[in-house]
């Protein structure tokens, strides 16, 4: 059966924060819900930061959207998503603030494909990213994700 967004995203893993000290701090903030929920080990955070330092911020998929993730063997336990909206944005690339941080924990390279398909069609339209970035409450952010129609 196809994986749905509500299998992969729990309301308690959606949050809105005003600002983060820097991009490394934002990775801690955005991954913490998945650490608390037992979906990733704390070292997953360091894995993401280390990958970014080695390879650059390749996970900024489109302006204003980062898909934070590391390799399964860098500390992922169970597949899950978290969403963090940073009102003031985070600069993974200088001068390009990013307000929507989606954290992905994956157990392997493709069992989360159904949800990636939804995320890809959602984020292909910048208007959807804007809606998430400016949603009033975390409940609203959560609804935007789980109610987005699967293709």
């Amino acid at each position: 059966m196809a994986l749905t967004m509500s299998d992969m995203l729990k309301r308690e893993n959606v949050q809105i924060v005003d600002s983060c000290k820097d991009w490394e701090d934002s990775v801690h903030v955005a991954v913490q819900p998945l650490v608390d929920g037992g979906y990733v080990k704390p070292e997953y955070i360091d894995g993401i930061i280390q990958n970014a330092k080695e390879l650059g911020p390749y996970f900024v998929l489109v302006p204003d959207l980062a898909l934070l993730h590391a390799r399964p063997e860098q500390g992922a336990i169970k597949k899950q998503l978290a969403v963090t909206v940073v009102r003031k944005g985070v600069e993974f690339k200088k001068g390009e603030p990013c307000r929507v941080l989606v954290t992905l924990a994956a157990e392997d390279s493709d069992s989360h494909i159904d949800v990636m398909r939804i995320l890809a069609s959602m984020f292909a339209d910048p208007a959807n990213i804007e809606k998430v970035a400016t949603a009033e409450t975390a409940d609203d952010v959560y609804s935007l994700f789980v109610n987005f129609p699967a293709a």
Partner: protein
Amino acid sequence: MAIHKILCCCGSGLGSSLIVHMNTEEVVKKLGHPEIEVDHSTISDIHEGAADLFVVGGDLADFVNNVPDDKKIVLKNILDKNELEEKLKAHLG
């Protein structure tokens, strides 16, 4: 040279590369080449012989410097299917 295999690559091999993999599969079918095998992996798997064509996002362009232009596609926007289609068309002829 005929393209039999396309490998979409990103830093971790499961985020953006998976998205590009899905989009590439869709586009090659649309372009009439359903026989082409598409897969995704990490950039460390990019080497001569691993595939006939490599697709990466612009942020990782530096990592495909030694891949000849006729064997790679570097995307400006990895979610943009139109850009992908245009660039794939140029390679598939």
